């Protein structure tokens, strides 16, 4: 239990061990710990960023889908409109065509009627002339009594 030189030697040894620990042990360990802390923080931040990006992407996808839906509706309504237009046009064309055909038919009928009437008239005139010939018992010169025959025919 004597206090002696041991004390001083221990003090020196203490100083040496502390110095070595301070120089060769503590810094590498702390560096490793700090690096790991930084790495973990980085990883967490990256995960957070990834999550945010995913959310953003989902939002964007929703927007795109909404827009696409809107476009599709527009296209459908335009097509509907166009369909109606075409339908109307077709109807109008058909009506006009029908009208035209009807007018043409009318005109033809008119013409036919007129021609038939003319023919009938001529035949009547001939008949009348023949009848007159027979009645008068004498030959009537068709050319000489042309005016008479025609006025007669007109009265028919």
């Amino acid at each position, binding site marked *: 239990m004597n206090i002696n030189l041991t*004390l001083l030697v221990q003090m020196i040894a203490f100083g040496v061990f502390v110095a070595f620990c301070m120089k060769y042990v503590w810094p590498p360990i702390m560096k490793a710990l700090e690096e790991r802390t930084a790495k973990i923080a980085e990883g967490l931040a990256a995960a957070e960023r990834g999550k945010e990006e995913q959310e953003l992407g989902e939002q964007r996808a929703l927007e795109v889908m909404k827009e696409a839906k809107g476009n599709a509706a527009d296209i459908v309504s335009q097509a509907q409109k166009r369909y109606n237009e075409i339908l109307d046009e077709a109807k109008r064309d058909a009506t006009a065509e029908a009208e035209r055909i009807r007018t043409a038919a009318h005109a033809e009928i008119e013409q036919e009627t007129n021609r038939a009437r003319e023919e009938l008239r001529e035949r009547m005139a001939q008949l009348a002339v023949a009848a007159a010939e027979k009645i008068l018992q004498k030959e009537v010169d068709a050319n000489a009594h042309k005016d008479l025959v025609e006025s007669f025919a007109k009265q028919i």
Partner: protein
Amino acid sequence: MAADTLTAQDYISHHLTNLTLGFHPEHGLTFAHNAEEASAMGFWALHVDSLLWSFGLGYLAYRFMRGVAQKATAGVPTGSQNFLEWIVDFVNENVRGSFSAKNDMVAPLALTVFVWVFLMNLMDLIPVDLIPHGFAQLMSLFGADPHHVYMRVVPTTDPNITFGMSLSVFLLVLYYSFKIKGAAGFAAELTMQPFGKLGMPANLVLEGISLLSKPLSLSLRLFGNLYAGEMIFILIALMYGHNLLLDISGMTLQLAWAIFHILIITLQAFIFMVLTIVYLDMAHQHH
């Protein structure tokens, strides 16, 4: 041990004597053959056993920590790195909790103190006779008288070792007190409080005692705890070799005391570390 010609008193004093190398007034440079010779050597003597165990354990701890530190990676730590990181984290937490100033030396110092003191205390758990008896037998092969070969394996039961560390800490406290507070600031801290200018002598006495009690209590607490613990182990060892009943109770007591002592050696290492940090923190406080 108690069975041979040694008396209990001889046995105890044998266990409490260091292997001392020094200049004896009559015999010159030699190992002391008994406690009287060791005392006669005065200040210029070395406790070879304390120093060897202290250096050996310190070197062992340093080699281990250095080896791990060299291979330390920031990736997933394994085995020994995990273990050391656990200790380093523990020490670092304590330093950050108690030490508010900025000083890169305090944390490694605390780590050294904790690990080293713990290992030196740990020697207390080795059966008291194992190493001293083995060493004495070994030395008797070289012609030494085994009854006069001494070997104390727990360095922290040697006040030289505990004072050596606490005085180192005390020197650091003084150094940083002067450095941070300045000579005037340090003097003011010692003389101007708690009673103000008029009570200067009383202040000096109070503050001086409080300052000096730091290294004293730091080392004596560690020394006292470990010395008492070792003494109890020695006393328990004395129970062996008489009869079966005493042997069995001795074994029971030794086991119980050893288990309890695991707590004490850890606690004392921890207290030494924490007080070192706290004293250094006080030295860094600016008023």
